[in-house]
């Protein structure tokens, strides 16, 4: 198998969108009967290369060899005819029709021009049994669990003689048992000679089921290897683009600033499959970083702390007293602010002015008997435009016309003008230019010096290590490590992200806590021994 010509060989793939390169000489090679992991951070080019493979995009340059011949699929339908099937995160089948109908949609067995129902049901049941799936095939698909729906999608793909099945984050909505079933199906596919491209952010899963791996970063293929030859740490380093030797950068401030009263303490936070056992604490005047790979549950944790989603379990203490915010409004009244990672979808109100956007959360306090004090609103807007150096024609300009960095500053100001005690910032520097990035980070530091507690989520290790006093690492929805002082290095964070808090070789264990994947929850920062 190793020596045979690969099933798929994509080489030198270039693709840009309106001048911005998304892929540069990207490569993807998948052998026959091979389960192939494809990983990378957000924007690394994974989905672009998959979309090119499945015919949703045309490449600007490069070649695709599939099953011995050059192909250039112009549409998903054509890719499917060639034997490339895709199972999307959002299952695109017909929820209201039966399982059997979905399996045979568009190619139903017929008799006298009518659908041969009994044969179709029998065939569908037989097909699903091959994957150890036992369901009533006459049930509407929507009544089955997400896992079964995925199996149906896979069964459909296999029965169309797919040679390659692409699974885009198939496990993101499955529980552990369902994941096992899916893995069983994947192994069976492999036994039948079908190859699988498996996109996931959960490293354990990749090692459990994949034979080889391709790592992408910034639109390039940065590593191709057998799964067993690449350790988890190497994998994470390849994804993040760092080498141990050059990541010795250390946090610039020690622990002298930390030590205020605890603002928020969280233990055993749970919700769905994304957050299983998260714990952290933030004190006054402290910047706490929250690190983790994509899908580790960072954003989900932040949303629960802010009352945007309800936790299914766990304890949240606000200033020592148990608290459960049922809506963001309640968290805001407790002087907590939350800036979402998705500025466009969850941050700005595009048609409103800078002034209106900035004072949105403060509005109830700007009013007497429900009437907005526009003069005061104006003053506050002017003040923050000046203080944060927001570049706009006037506070009356619509926010959609501002650059990303300036929009982000307006959103920061939205919370700062409410005079918060705790600020939760989810990827505050995503998608903004370098200058604005530095300004925002130094502002965060300045605010913490002034006594504000900050919980900062970031994908950029450098930002966390340099900007945070303490970093909590999440992995698969669990807090697996808490690093501070001398123990807070990019290496240590990467180690924790990769395999759960085992300290770097030859390094003092210091404040790294909670190793392993089990009940590694870290809690109650106040009682924690302080490192450094």
């Amino acid at each position: 198998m190793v020596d045979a010509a690969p099933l798929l060989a994509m080489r030198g793939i270039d693709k840009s969108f309106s001048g911005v390169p998304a892929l540069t000489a990207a490569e993807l090679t998948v052998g026959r009967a091979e389960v192939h992991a494809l990983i990378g951070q957000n924007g690394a080019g994974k989905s672009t290369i998959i979309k090119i493979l499945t015919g949703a995009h045309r490449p600007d340059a490069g070649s695709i060899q599939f099953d011995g011949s050059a192909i250039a699929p112009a549409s998903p339908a054509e890719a499917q005819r060639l034997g490339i099937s895709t199972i999307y995160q959002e299952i695109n089948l017909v929820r209201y029709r039966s399982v059997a109908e979905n399996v045979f949609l568009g190619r139903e067995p017929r008799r006298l021009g009518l659908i041969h129902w009994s044969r179709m049901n029998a065939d569908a049941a037989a097909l699903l049994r091959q994957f150890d799936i036992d369901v009533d095939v006459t049930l509407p698909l929507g009544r089955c669990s997400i896992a079964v729906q995925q199996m149906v999608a896979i069964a459909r793909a296999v029965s169309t003689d797919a040679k390659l099945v692409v699974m885009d984050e198939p496990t993101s909505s499955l529980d552990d048992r369902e994941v096992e079933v899916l893995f069983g199906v994947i192994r069976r596919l492999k036994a039948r000679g079908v190859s699988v491209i498996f996109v996931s952010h959960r490293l354990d899963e990749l090692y459990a089921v994949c034979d080889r791996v391709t790592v992408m970063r910034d639109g390039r293929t940065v590593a191709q290897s057998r799964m067993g030859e690449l350790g988890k740490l190497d994998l994470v380093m390849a994804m993040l683009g760092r080498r141990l030797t050059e990541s010795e950068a250390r946090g610039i401030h020690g622990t002298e600033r930390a030590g205020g009263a605890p603002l928020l303490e969280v233990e055993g936070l749970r919700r769905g499959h994304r957050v299983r056992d998260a714990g952290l604490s933030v004190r006054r005047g402290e910047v706490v970083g929250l690190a983790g790979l994509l899908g580790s549950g960072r954003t989900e944790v932040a949303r629960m702390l802010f009352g945007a989603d309800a936790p299914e379990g766990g304890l949240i203490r606000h200033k020592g007293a148990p608290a459960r915010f049922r809506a963001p409004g309640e968290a805001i009244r407790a002087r907590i602010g939350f800036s979402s990672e998705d500025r466009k979808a969850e941050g700005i109100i595009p048609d409103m002015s800078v002034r209106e956007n900035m004072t949105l959360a403060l509005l109830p306090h700007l009013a007497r008997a429900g009437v907005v004090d526009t003069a005061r609103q104006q003053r506050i807007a002017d003040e923050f435009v000046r203080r944060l150096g927001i570049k706009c024609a006037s506070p009356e300009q619509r926010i959609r016309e501002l650059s990303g960095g300036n929009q982000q500053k307006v959103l920061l100001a939205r919370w700062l003008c409410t005079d918060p005690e705790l600020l939760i910032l989810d990827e505050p520097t995503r998608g903004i230019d370098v200058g604005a990035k530095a300004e925002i980070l130094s502002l965060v530091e300045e605010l913490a010096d002034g006594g504000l507690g900050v919980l900062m989520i970031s994908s950029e290790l450098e930002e966390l290590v340099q900007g945070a006093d303490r970093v909590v690492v999440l992995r698969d929805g669990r807090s697996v490590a808490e690093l501070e002082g001398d123990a807070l290095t990019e290496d240590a964070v990467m180690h924790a992200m990769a395999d759960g808090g085992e300290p770097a070789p030859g390094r003092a264990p210091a404040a790294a806590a909670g190793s392993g994947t089990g009940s590694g929850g870290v809690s109650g920062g106040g009682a924690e021994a302080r490192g450094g």
Partner: protein
Amino acid sequence: MAEITLQKRPGEAAAVRTRRRIKALARGWGAPLALVLLLAFNVLFTPNFLTWQTFFVNLTQVATIVIVATGMTLVIATGGIDLSVGSLMAIAGALAPLILSGALTGPLDPGLAVALAFVLPVLAAGLFGLFNGVLVTRFAIQPIVATLVLFIAGRGIAQVMTNGNLQTFSNPSFQWIGLGRILGLPVQAVLMVAIVALAAWILRRTVFGRHVLATGGNEPAARLAGVPVTGVKLAVYAISGLLSGLAGLVVIAINSSSDANLIGLGMELDAIAAVAVGGTLLTGGRASVVGTLLGALIIQLLRYTLLANGVPDAAALVVKAAAILLAVWIQRQGEGR
């Protein structure tokens, strides 16, 4: 794309900018301009246009549309829509004569009967509006489907209440709302101006008004900024119900009779048309109550102009549709994308 723009000569860029400015101007001032043109046309060509009688006829006819369309503007500003307004008018319109005649409560003091005939139908319509809001928020049903429920059932309820009979009545104190005058102006016209002014002020100056626009502008963002999105939506549907109820009373007061089959028939479309012509974004987030007033006036005047100049009503409908199309087209200009 970027390169193509760069290769344009400066003159062309300026021309593009001018064109964009004209389009933006058309969006901001299109409605008042259209109104002025229509008025000018009528002054020149329509006989007897500049008389008090013509003025009052038009005001009386447009008032109910404007009152309903004001509530509709608020609903649309949150990104919703309310199809039930006409049916809620019918419910209020059917309820009031039942209270006046004492059929519902037994004999009442005449003063009290009139007071109740004003208050209860409007409150009832408001409660039905709140029901719309509950469907939209608690059960997360799309507004167009949620309000379709009462669009269909509401008129049925009104007919059941009256056994489908035409109710005639004569009660000058109640009918003041449709036939009376304040300072020589029809009462409903005064009511219309007051409601528009109040709603415009609320939208512009109050926390609630800004929350309405924030909800329509970007609901997830508004929620994360602490805007009580559910409460805002409940409120706008309830307000739309209340105003529909009020409009229902005006209609029956003018007619001295109440026919549940006819009160407010087709009102939802007139109201939506007025909102659209007035420049309110149908996707929510940007709204102008004064624009809605202008929109309703334009549609009314357009219909009057055609009728007064001998164009049949059926043809007038086509012109009305064309006006709406034009308004929506103008809206999409200057969006600048």
